[in-house]
């Protein structure tokens, strides 16, 4: 009952994005059970086949079932996105809050380290890692984590800086609360809404970045069905078998779009300044949310 009330109170974008994410999750979860082909399994006898009932997304140039590859790719993307998001938040939250709350030496130390990491262009940093550690999904993951930790830390720090001078933090201090308690019970919960939005954004961008790295050939190694890798492998056949490129590309966009919609919807939902009233449900409003509604229908009295 409580869940239903909460669900109805969410705005359309959040609900639609949850439907989209649920669809992708269900698709990649049931895929191994509905198709007998493994994503790496070659030699189905045919190559470059269009969609059939047995192979819904067709067969690629090496005779592998594209449906199992794409669904495997969704799983891989989700895993990488989630890992990057949780790791960067796990490091970024303590670093950001401590650096904001403690200030002084600790803040300078953390900030200079972050500056150092910020100084490298993202892709260049990833390439450096790949050169040192060799290419592969795990290297790409490590590079992405190292790219997103400073972004998360800096975001948390700025949010915590605004929060730490609020009176209730001072009040907790006078009441004898310890530093840990102030950070964990007073500052963190009050910046949590914006961290939720940050988390979904990092999730989406990490997926895109991993696809980009794999597309450039520095991410996932050949048999791994990363969505970016599938695009590189099949780009030569774009004129003859365009479905081999279009389907993974659309899947990737669909995944990132649903995460961005979720982040955008959460931002509005958690913003106390926006009215939570539901406007008329419309697909147009989904992508073009109504700006502040004029009072009296915009007419002068």
């Amino acid at each position, binding site marked *: 009952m409580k869940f239903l009330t909460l669900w109805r109170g969410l705005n359309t974008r959040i609900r639609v994005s949850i439907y989209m994410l649920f669809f992708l999750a269900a698709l990649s979860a049931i895929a191994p059970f509905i198709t007998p082909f493994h994503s790496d399994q070659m030699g189905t006898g045919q190559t470059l086949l269009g969609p059939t009932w047995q192979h819904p997304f067709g067969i690629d140039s090496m005779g592998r079932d594209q449906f199992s590859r794409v669904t495997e790719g969704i799983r891989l993307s989700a895993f990488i996105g989630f890992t990057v998001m949780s790791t960067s938040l796990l490091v970024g939250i303590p670093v950001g809050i401590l650096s904001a709350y403690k*200030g*002084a030496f600790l803040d300078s130390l953390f900030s200079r380290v972050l500056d150092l990491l910020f100084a490298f262009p993202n892709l260049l940093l990833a390439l450096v890692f790949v050169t040192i550690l060799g290419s592969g999904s795990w290297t790409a993951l490590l590079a992405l984590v190292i790219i997103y930790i400073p972004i998360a830390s800096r975001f948390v720090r700025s949010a915590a800086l605004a929060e730490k001078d*609020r*009176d*209730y933090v*001072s*009040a*907790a*201090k*006078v*009441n*004898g*609360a*310890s530093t840990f*308690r102030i950070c964990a*019970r*007073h500052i963190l*919960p*009050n910046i949590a809404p914006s961290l939720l939005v940050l988390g979904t954004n990092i999730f989406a961008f990490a997926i895109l970045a991993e696809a980009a790295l794999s597309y450039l050939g520095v991410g996932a190694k050949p048999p791994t069905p990363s969505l970016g890798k599938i695009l590189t492998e099949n780009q030569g056949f774009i004129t003859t078998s365009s479905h081999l490129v279009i389907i993974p590309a659309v899947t990737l966009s669909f995944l990132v779009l649903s995460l961005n919609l979720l982040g955008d919807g959460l931002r509005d939902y958690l913003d106390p300044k926006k009215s939570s009233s539901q406007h008329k449900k419309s697909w147009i409003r989904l992508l073009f949310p109504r700006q502040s509604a004029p009072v009296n229908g915009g007419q002068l009295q």
Partner: protein
Amino acid sequence: MDKTFVSKAVSASEWRSTPVNSPSLVSIRNLSVDFWRVAAPPALNNVFLDVLPGEAVGLVGESGSGKSTLGFAIAGLLDSNDVQLSGEILFKGQNLLTISQDDYRKIRGSKIGYIFQDASSSLNPLLKIGKQLTHPLMANGGMSKADAILRAKELLDMVEISQSQRRLNQYPHEISGGMKQRVVIAAALSRDPLLLIADEPTTALDVTVQAQIIDLLLRLKNSLSMSLIFISHDLGVVARVADRIVVMKDGNIIETGGVEQVLANPRESYTQLLLANIPKLRHVDESQSLRFWGNNEP
């Protein structure tokens, strides 16, 4: 604490010569506060102030005179990264500026209460009132949860909040501004502090509620026999609350004395100015008032 001890107003010559082993609860000696990052005169300049047990001291002065900074300094809310503190703040003989952070935290948690100006922002919006009252009790007072809840209810009764049991489960946004200030007072008093610092506790409230809160503060101060540092720019309020008035200007204490003495015979010209600036109801010219109310006849 000695409950029979009630101080009389201490004259200016007396307080300056208070010996070090005085009965003062708080004894501020030669305190200077300088903000590193601002190229301005120090926020506090060699301030001396003694607060006796059970005494109510009213700190008055204009904005920027350093009265809030003095309160912050005693409560340890000034960040040593931002300010340079020199001098001594003796609390029951212990110098708060030299003891360890942990000891300071314990003293703050058990012996000093602080009431902020804006009650709505001094309560954590995400924690229920009950939680905000019981947490410090359990963390610093070493109470069990059940005891802390009983004590919280008792505190809400003490600050005259109705339906205290229900309030414990409410969030700050569910109660009125005056009630929030009462909750803040309850939180400040929860561990029976020896010193309560009230930093303009009534400024954000309307006049009726102001009067109620001040009455409440006075009654509590007398019944709990604690010292009170009442910071305000409202001389009328301070006159009701304080035993002694300390006038501050530009980080200096420029005049101090009993309420009657300072209000009736201010020595400093600045205090006279401050007194002269209390808004009064003047005789209103009949024709002017008509025009004011929109009667635009020439």
